[in-house]
């Protein structure tokens, strides 16, 4: 198990370098001149322009730019944003907020998704099952920004149960509403995934054996059906954590959450390479670690799976 873990963590290095190189190149290759945009179309003296280009290494060819970036990275210098702030500071502010948002969303979709999914699966074809199926279909079909605006307007503006936007601190309680919006679509998928898996396992031999042995229904569902049904669900949740963190742009925009999604979006539009690469780099790490945790959970859920 330990060597497996170490091996996986070692894999991070090539993945990280490959991802940053690719992203660095993609930002480099996008059309547009960041410095021309900085002036906002107002005049800029040639000296100022040259100084700014030099400051961000934009006067260098690609390989030198990337080389300089890597060189600084070794000393944990992530570079500067165009506003003159260290990218590390930008990340340090945005990531905790986004992490809280993503964890809340993951909890919401995990807990409610599995509970509803199990109930629906155990009562296949009954009223609860049909209702859940239709409801989840609707949630999947409605775009996030519609859900977001509707919930913001109803809960934030009309009912005034919560503020329509999040304060800068991005505390847990403030983030519940955005996390609901963010997690809702995945929640629908988790329900459907759990339900299908439960239905499949319900008729498995070991479940029948357990029932025949006279175990209580509760224990049969919890230990025999649910545990075996969780593998695809856990796989989905693990992969989803990454997309929840990086893909919350719409939700963050609606609720004005100062998180990673918007940081990334703005940086891409500005052509601010160091910020884009740093954000993506951290997301890559999150992805890899989340998948590692998922793999370990497999062993926990199914004793037949072992890692040498």
């Amino acid at each position, binding site marked *: 198990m330990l060597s497996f873990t170490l091996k996986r963590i070692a894999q991070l290095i090539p993945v990280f370098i490959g991802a940053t190189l690719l992203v660095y190149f993609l930002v480099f290759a*996008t059309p547009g001149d960041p410095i021309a945009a900085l002036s906002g179309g*107002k005049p800029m003296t040639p000296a100022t322009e040259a100084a700014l280009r030099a400051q961000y290494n934009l006067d260098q060819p690609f390989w030198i730019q990337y080389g300089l970036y890597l060189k600084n990275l070794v000393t944990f210098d992530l570079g500067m944003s165009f506003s003159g702030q260290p990218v590390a500071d930008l990340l340090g502010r945005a990531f905790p907020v986004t992490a809280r948002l993503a964890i809340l969303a993951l909890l919401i979709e995990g807990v409610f998704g599995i509970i509803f999914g199990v109930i629906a699966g155990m009562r296949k074809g009954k009223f609860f099952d049909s209702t859940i199926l239709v409801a989840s279909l609707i949630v999947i079909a409605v775009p996030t920004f519609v859900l977001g605006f509707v919930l913001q307007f109803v809960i934030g503006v009309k009912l005034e149960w919560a503020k329509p*936007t999040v304060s800068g601190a991005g505390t847990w309680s403030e983030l519940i509403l955005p996390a609901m919006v963010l997690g809702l679509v995945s929640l629908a998928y988790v329900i459907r995934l759990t339900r299908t898996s439960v239905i499949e396992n319900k008729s498995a031999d070991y479940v029948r054996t357990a029932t025949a042995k006279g175990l209580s229904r509760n224990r049969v569902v919890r230990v025999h059906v649910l545990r075996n049904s969780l593998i695809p669900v856990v796989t989905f949740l693990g992969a989803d954590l990454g997309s929840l963190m990086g893909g919350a742009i719409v939700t963050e925009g609606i609720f004005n959450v100062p998180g990673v999604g918007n940081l990334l979006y703005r940086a891409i*539009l*500005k052509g601010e390479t160091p910020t884009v690469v740093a954000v993506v780099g951290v997301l890559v790490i999150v992805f890899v670690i989340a998948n590692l945790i998922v793999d370990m959970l497999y062993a926990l859920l199914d004793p037949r799976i072992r890692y040498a």
Partner: protein
Amino acid sequence: MRISHASKAVALSAALALTLSACGGGSSETPEGNGDAQAGDTSYVVSANTTEPQNGLLPANTNEVGGGRVMDLIFTGLVSYTADGKTQNELAESIETTDSQNYTIKIKSGQTFSDGSPVTAASFVDAWNFGAAAKNAQLNSYFFESIKGYKEVSAENAKKDTMEGLKVVDDTTFTVELSQPESDFPLRLGYTAFFPLPEAAFEDPKAFGEKPVGNGPYTLAEWNHDVNLKLEVNEKYDGPRKAQNGGIDFKVYQSTDSAYQDLISGNLDVLDQVPPSQLASYQSDLGDRSVNSPYAGNATITIPGYLDHFKQGEEGNLRRAAISQAIDRQLVIDKVYQGGKVIAKDFTAPVIDGYSDSIPGSEVLTFNAEAAKKAWADADAISKWDADAELSIGYNVDGAGNKEYVEAVVNQLKNNLGINAVAKPYSSFKELREQVTERKMTGGFRTGWQADYPSLYNFLGALYGTGAGSNDGDYSNKEFDAKLKEGLAATDPAAGAEIFNQAQEILMKDLPAIPLWYQAVQGGWSENVSNVEFGWNGVPLYNEIAGK
């Protein structure tokens, strides 16, 4: 200051011209400002929307609205601007000149920065030299180009870092020598770039930009990046813009949509930009707590002179006139902006002293489909426009609302001229600006201007002067340049304005840009505040707002 071009989620930066999102608008007749501030609660902390300042808060490095609105409150210059764009003395005791070229500036004595250090003549001279010097790479450096000796300090690898045109006479007096007479120089002195700096600023400008110490009606107490900027009242400030509230809490919004939701639920006091999605309904939502009025900015379309068929001269002029007359501006304004703009009648904007809506030749800005067709046909007689040829109008998609209005304009061209006009999207502002600055555009593109200071010259010089910094269409007309120079040399501002308007007569013939409409601010405020008025540049006069 330039306009923010972005709007939708991002406060991206800026744009010059180009924009829709502009923040703000101005008006001298705010409906229901509710007048007397005395009745209000002067300890109330007002919350207002902003975008994250793009740079550290240094006067010569702040060239967009997000930083500009804060700078205007934490600093004060020699003069400041009233709501209707007039200048009033702030620190200046007097600004004297006999020839519009040599100025003697006396400042009030006993003024201090909020840290207690004195504001002296050197605070200005040093700050301006700092802003101009090439090694400091300040974005607003070009603002000092009129001062004698600017070339020597602003060139790449410049050896000198002080301009010879600036001389400190004594603690409260300094002189400015310009390289040519420029009568509107005193008007510029209220712009951010001309603010003074305390000595401490030069030791570590970068650190100072994070925690600026100014001399304005407020001090910057806290700056939480991407979240908020908290301004407290500066008790040491003693000028015409005294705070009528207990401070201002600027909240950074990524989109004006979420700011609007905060406004209508009472979580935000002042919003200076209603999102495009709410333009149809904000007046009924807010009633007399809303404003819609023009400010000193405009939207134009530039068809560069380096394009075939559009070179300066008879054919190019006829084609531009045809395009201008083929656009039913009011229809576009009504459909796209719910009537929230005002048809342009010149190249500047109302609210500016000397503005005229009846410049000879301005009928070319009026919709007239027949005249348009005729002008286009006349141009064809000189050199035939290929019927299949495409005329594109470029815009950046990362600014909310750009697509809608450019497409509307393009449709007008298609219908009224019968040509193959297309709207050409650019993925980002930086891409559009790159093509524009490298002169690689293959068609027209959206432009515009938001005034830095209230003066006709600010709209004309930088945009249409030969070789000027923002002359994106490479326009050049000796006659026009001569008129500009003549206007600048006038010693009386009114006489100067008249000459600038004569210069505009030339522009009406050449149409280096095609004016579409004047920008207008659509803003609103909550029930918690009173006396909300928007300035000449569309930015609220924050210091006058009081609680209820």
